[in-house]
């Protein structure tokens, strides 16, 4: 796949082939370099450089005051980050896996999303919480969760989920520069599986703007993060059968780019939504509901959701792949909305 990044403020024209994790590392280094307020912390982010190496080399380069390990306690990590944000720093916390964000949810739901509101902007929290999420690489129990819907339902926090290295870099820099709290979920499956040309130097990709990955006239497939490549494969297969599939990568769930969604739906009239989160009340539901409210007159077929299941992501390696949407399932949904 060759996604086209849409850097908004890049000056450099040179690029470099990078994995997503390298692009993230690059963004973090740039952020540390440009803004002394930026501080990175979490479990094993220091000497070790993170379990996925996203912070590799940063402590050595920027010192143990800017990049540091915390005790093992996620509420403490997010809660401390909130305090740092109140005091004017730019905290960039890493939660080792999205499934370990749960102990911190009280700090998120009670404070991270409320501080600007409750102090009428006397305080605001320019904090980023990064976490690897999603399945597909046979991690241990609870290492493959996709909790983005919980955050999307939390007023006052933004949710960003990149699907390519270049996007990851530009979106992460935008998230760090955003004055408000941003959750930044990184698909584990994409960390190293995907390489592309990434612009060198600083650039940002604005939060709240979806990316039309491939244009098409017949079906709109809406997705994000780790599911983008799955949708693309299904779209490629459909195209071979003469079906024009428009794949939309939301990039950010909050703010949601309804404009891009609705424009596409008005054109195609057929919608498939793909996420790997559990089915009931996943973020796919919000996308569907938005379309059912705003563009129902354009629909020529039911909105089909291809999702994870109403069961925990299975810890049983040999069958775990059944859980996660695959190109076959998405292709079937595309056929279904075409056949309606």
């Amino acid at each position: 796949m060759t996604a086209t990044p849409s850097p908004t403020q890049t000056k450099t024209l040179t690029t470099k082939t990078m994995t997503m994790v390298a692009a993230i590392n690059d963004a973090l280094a740039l952020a540390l370099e440009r803004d002394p307020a930026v501080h990175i912390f979490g479990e094993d982010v220091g000497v070790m450089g993170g379990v996925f190496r996203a912070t590799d080399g940063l402590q050595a380069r920027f010192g143990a005051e800017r990049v540091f390990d915390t005790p093992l306690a996620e509420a403490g990590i997010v809660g401390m980050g909130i305090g740092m944000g109140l005091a004017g720093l730019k905290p960039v916390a890493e939660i080792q896996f999205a499934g370990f964000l749960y102990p911190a949810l009280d700090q998120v739901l009670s404070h991270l999303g409320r501080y600007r509101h409750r102090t009428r902007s006397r305080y605001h929290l320019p904090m980023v919480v990064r976490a690897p999420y999603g399945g597909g690489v046979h991690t241990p129990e609870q290492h493959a969760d996709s909790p983005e819907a919980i955050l999307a339902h939390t007023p006052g926090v933004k949710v960003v989920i990149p699907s390519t290295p270049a996007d990851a870099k530009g979106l992460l820099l935008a998230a760090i520069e955003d004055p408000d709290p941003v959750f930044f979920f990184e698909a584990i499956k994409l960390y190293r599986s995907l390489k592309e040309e990434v612009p060198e130097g600083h650039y940002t990709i604005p939060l709240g703007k979806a990316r039309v990955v491939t244009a098409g006239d017949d079906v709109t497939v809406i997705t994000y993060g780790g599911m983008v490549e799955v949708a693309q494969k299904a779209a490629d297969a459909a195209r071979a059968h003469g079906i024009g599939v428009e794949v939309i990568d939301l990039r950010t769930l909050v703010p949601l780019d309804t404009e891009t969604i609705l424009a596409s739906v008005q054109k195609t009239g057929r919608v498939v939504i793909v996420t790997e989160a559990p089915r009931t009340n996943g973020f796919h539901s919000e996308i569907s509901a938005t379309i059912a409210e705003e563009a129902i007159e354009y629909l020529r077929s039911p909105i089909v959701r291809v999702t994870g299941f109403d069961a925990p992501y299975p810890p049983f390696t040999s069958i775990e792949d059944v859980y996660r949407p695959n190109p076959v399932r998405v292709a079937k949904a595309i056929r279904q909305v075409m056949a309606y």
Partner: protein
Amino acid sequence: MSKPTAKSKSKTPPKSAAVPAPSDPTAAGAAAYADAQGEMIQLIAPDGTVTQPERLPDVSIRLRLYHLMRRARHFDERAWVLYRTGRMGVFPPYGGMEASQVGTAAALTPDDWLFPTYRDTGAALTYGLPLAQTIAYWRTSPHGWAMPENLKVLPFYIPIATQYPHAVGAALAERRRGTRNVAMAYIGDGGSSEGDFHEALNFAGALNAPCVFILQNNGWAISVPTRSQTRATNLSRRAEGYGIPGVRVDGNDVLATYRVTAEAVQRARDGEGPTLIETVTYRVKPHTVADDPSRYRTAEDTAGWDARDPVLRLRAHLLAEGHLTEEADAEITREIEAEFEEALRVADAYPEPTPAEILDHVFAEPTPQLVRQRAQILAEEGA
């Protein structure tokens, strides 16, 4: 165990202070009470007689603390009356706990951070939160939430214990920025059972954050007595589990709370890390003005605590030592009353918020969704 207490001794006086730090250098060190953790530090007895003359703060400080306690008590009393007449919202009283709140908060400067719980109006007032804004907060007016730019006090915390990690972060940020400012956070005996308490104390110790953690043990978490909340009988001991100093102080002796807090603040400023201070006091009042404690406790439970009243204790001491006269006291009363009534007038004049304000201040830049939702509310208003 290499506890920072062992070597700690105030190296530098605080930059400035609402109440100046104790001037007696011999008593300022932590070593003085490092061995006394099991006991409760007390400088004056309930009847006002001095038990530790060598550690008393200067007279000017004592008088200042007296004034601040009187002022805090007046707020508490007036809030109650205003509530009854519908001019104040539901309010958690702290009357009887003034020494615990005033003595601790008085050790801060406005450059320091204060993280108060809903019970800690007395601490916030002492720190410098303007009266009118405090009234506005308890009237649930947005004016009470928009804290002054020149202070570092946060709106009272409702979700129990969540403020503790924030204090660690703010304190750490001050250190990273090279200041000598500290953060102080309050919690109740009940709140100290929450996981956030543990994580915060451990983070502060591990990261050497300049924090002072005040644990106000007032005997009750709504209807549950402290003894049902924990098997521990000395909550300051929890500090040992984090390798930081823990101090237990008579929470109704404002000179003692002030003294130990000023020392802890000093250690924090000096880069020696956090301290946990347990103030042993009592919630003589109901949980809130809307609570009926007879549902869960008897007169016996509270008996004896009136005799330990912190305001009367300091007053007795000051009168006995000739630092206060009845006339001066009456003058304080007049001053405090006038100040409050003036603040009430200011608060009464705050304009009511408009409906669409519920959607303001969610993000710096409202999302398209919020823009639409706001338009909907405005349309309803127009209709």
